[in-house]
């Protein structure tokens, strides 16, 4: 079953694809008995696995059909190769696509959660108790695919806000899920989104009814726990007319030797006068100093400003993963709608990041703003890739893009790939880019004030990223600043 990576490397992608198909067909020929009681699916991917996941989650028939459709489409697709990243071919048959924690009863309150799991949270500094008591953040914690705790639900429910795991939403609010799921990211959208649709195990669902301003930051912490388990979350946020929500997503992953595949999909929908603010701090395991291990993070995040005067704002701090492939985008369909993308991406050692955004201006008087700060250290590669598209009906569209790169040392790379397509001559599109290096002079100045080199780098880097960090909610900003410093430890001699 396990394919030799070295031998596959020499083959063309086409052969690789058919190799996967062969394996899939073999698997299908023999089939296997679905064991509903088991906690994990066997390694590999085929229609039975898709059925297994769907049945584990007790999903309605339409969900299974939706998954199978995605799976069948995925089989016909090829892994994208255009990004400025390189990695050995992924053996999709060597991944476990479903793994649930041992705990079986759905906890009604935080007290019912396995104390061991709660200890892990505390180590990560995100104790649910603390969160609940001090910050008023409702946390929907996802460990290994199954949502284990949702707090503040009652309080939110009084406002008509639905904030629950995706599995629960499929059971409790099938009409909402069915209406909006894959309406922004179609299952056929790309290789990884199709894979996600076929095998996603859980995620978050959030629905803000008309005219409601969500009184607290909604937050989900994702974390990979079991060995060899790919994570395929699916998040859907719907903000009805005149509503507002701020959503926080944070990721931490423990050390792993083998590369782990992560392909999430996030969809945001903002109706007339609605606003969604989505903030991410991504800290998956980046691999060791020699580039061994680490997460492969292939994420599709897209929002649609469906209604007039709506707004979607993405803020991301990307410090982890060995490979990041991620382009949170906004479709500006409603007139006067606004899209924003604020990003800090840090790469150190052998990390590779190809990240950016797409702003699709379709409505009139639509505005977008892109602020991207790339920080590269070690022998890493950091690319910004962005598309600003102005459609022919998007009169008076405005875009401003700022892409800055900061280099630490002389072995890393920073790249900018801005694409601009303008089909309406009233549009104004601006792009600015800078590249700078942390200077010996800056370091020495700090040293002379008693600040050691590592702290000096953290100060300089945080100063560089400040415009983006300022977009983060307060409690996140502090964590993110620490993360930047931790990620760059040992990067300056």
């Amino acid at each position, binding site marked *: 079953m396990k394919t030799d990576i070295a031998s596959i490397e020499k083959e063309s992608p086409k052969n690789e694809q058919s190799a996967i198909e062969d394996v899939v067909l073999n698997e299908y020929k023999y089939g296997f008995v679905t064991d509903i009681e088991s906690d994990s699916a066997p390694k590999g991917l085929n229609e039975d696995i898709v059925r297994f996941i769907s049945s584990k989650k007790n999903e309605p028939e339409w969900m299974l059909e939706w998954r199978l459709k995605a799976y069948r489409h995925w089989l016909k697709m090829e892994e994208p190769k255009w990004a400025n990243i390189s990695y050995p071919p992924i053996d999709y048959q060597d991944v476990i696509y479903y793994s649930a924690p041992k705990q079986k009863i759905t906890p009604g309150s935080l007290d019912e959660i396995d104390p061991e799991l709660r200890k892990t949270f505390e180590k990560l500094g995100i104790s649910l108790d603390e969160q609940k008591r001090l910050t008023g953040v409702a946390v929907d914690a996802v460990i290994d695919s199954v949502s284990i705790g949702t707090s503040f639900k009652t309080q939110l429910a009084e406002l008509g806000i639905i904030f629950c795991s995706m599995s629960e939403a499929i059971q409790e609010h099938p009409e909402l899920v069915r209406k909006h799921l894959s309406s922004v990211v179609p299952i056929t959208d790309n290789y990884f989104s199709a894979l996600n649709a076929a095998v996603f195990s859980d995620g978050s669902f959030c629905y803000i009814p008309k005219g409601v301003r969500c009184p607290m930051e909604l937050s989900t912490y994702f974390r990979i726990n079991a060995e060899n388990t790919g994570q395929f979350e699916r998040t859907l946020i719907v903000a009805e007319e005149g509503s507002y929500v701020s959503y926080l997503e944070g990721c931490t992953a423990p050390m792993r030797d083998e590369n782990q595949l992560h392909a999430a999909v996030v969809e945001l929908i903002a109706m007339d006068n609605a606003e969604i603010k989505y903030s991410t701090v991504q800290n998956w395991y980046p691999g060791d100093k020699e580039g061994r291990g680490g997460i492969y993070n292939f994420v599709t995040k897209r929002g649609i400003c469906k209604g007039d005067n709506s707004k979607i704002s993405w803020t991301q701090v990307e410090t982890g993963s060995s490979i990041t492939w991620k382009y949170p985008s906004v479709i500006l369909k409603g007139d006067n709608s606004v899209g924003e993308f604020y990003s800090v991406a840090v790469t150190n050692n052998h990390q590779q990041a190809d990240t950016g955004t797409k702003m699709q201006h379709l409505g009139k008087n639509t505005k977008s703003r892109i602020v991207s700060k790339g920080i590269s250290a070690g022998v890493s590669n950091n690319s910004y890739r962005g598309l600003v598209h102005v459609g022919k009906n998007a009169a008076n569209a405005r875009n401003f893009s700022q892409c800055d790169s900061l280099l630490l040392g002389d072995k890393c790379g920073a790249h900018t790939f801005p694409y601009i397509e303008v089909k309406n001559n009233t549009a104004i599109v601006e792009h600015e880019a800078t590249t700078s290096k942390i200077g010996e002079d800056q370091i020495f100045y700090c040293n002379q*004030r008693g600040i050691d080199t590592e*702290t000096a780098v953290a100060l*300089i880097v945080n*100063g560089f990223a*400040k*415009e983006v960090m300022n977009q983060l909610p307060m409690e996140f900003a502090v964590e993110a600043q620490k993360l930047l410093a931790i990620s760059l430890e040992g990067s300056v001699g």
Partner: protein
Amino acid sequence: MLKIQNLKASVEGKAILKGIDLEIKAGEVHAIMGPNGSGKSTLASVLAGRKEYEVTEGSVEYLGKDLLELAPEERAGEGLFLAFQYPVEIPGLTTTNFIKTAVNEIRKYRGEAPLDAVAFLKMMKEKMAMMNIGQSLLSRPLNEGFSGGEKKRNEVFQMAMLQPKMAILDETDSGLDIDAIRIVANGVNKLRNKDNAVLVVTHYQRLLDYIVPDFVHVLYNGRIVKSGTKELALELEEKGYDFIKNEVNVGEGV
């Protein structure tokens, strides 16, 4: 406090300091003067520990320690301060935040607990009044877009906040008009006391009208060729550096 013996240093293989001897005691103000290229700024940089400068010979004893063995941040921890000729800019980092980090890193080095926000602000307000510096400057990113005068005042403000035992002012007067020089010099004078020492590196005598030195040394071609009291500075101002050069060249020519 500071004892420099036969200090020789080079940059990129080129000898700049060719044997400096200098002793500075607590409570004293020394001035180093000299023409361009004589090695004044090199001396300041070597004492602060800039790594582009290689010490090839000699020793520097500071408060009983071998200064040359210490990393730049350790020297700062030991109370050595350099007011830079060209202070660097750090975009996005507020001056206040920078100074707070510096104050607490130095406290950490000395085994003291960090100042909390309240204590730090109190100290800052005090020194701001003393140095006649406004809040707006300190809220801006470090030195970014500062005028020459603002940068130098910021240097002296940092000196006030860090309260060094040994302060080195590297051409703090360069690029300043006479009003700015007076403000900066007044700041330095307020910080002088019997327990600290100041080394003023300058090209012109005029700064010494305001920061009056106990000793003046003339640096020429990598060596201290003449030492005296503040009258020496006035003599230099009157006769120019040529008289020193001639004196030295004649002496060496024999």
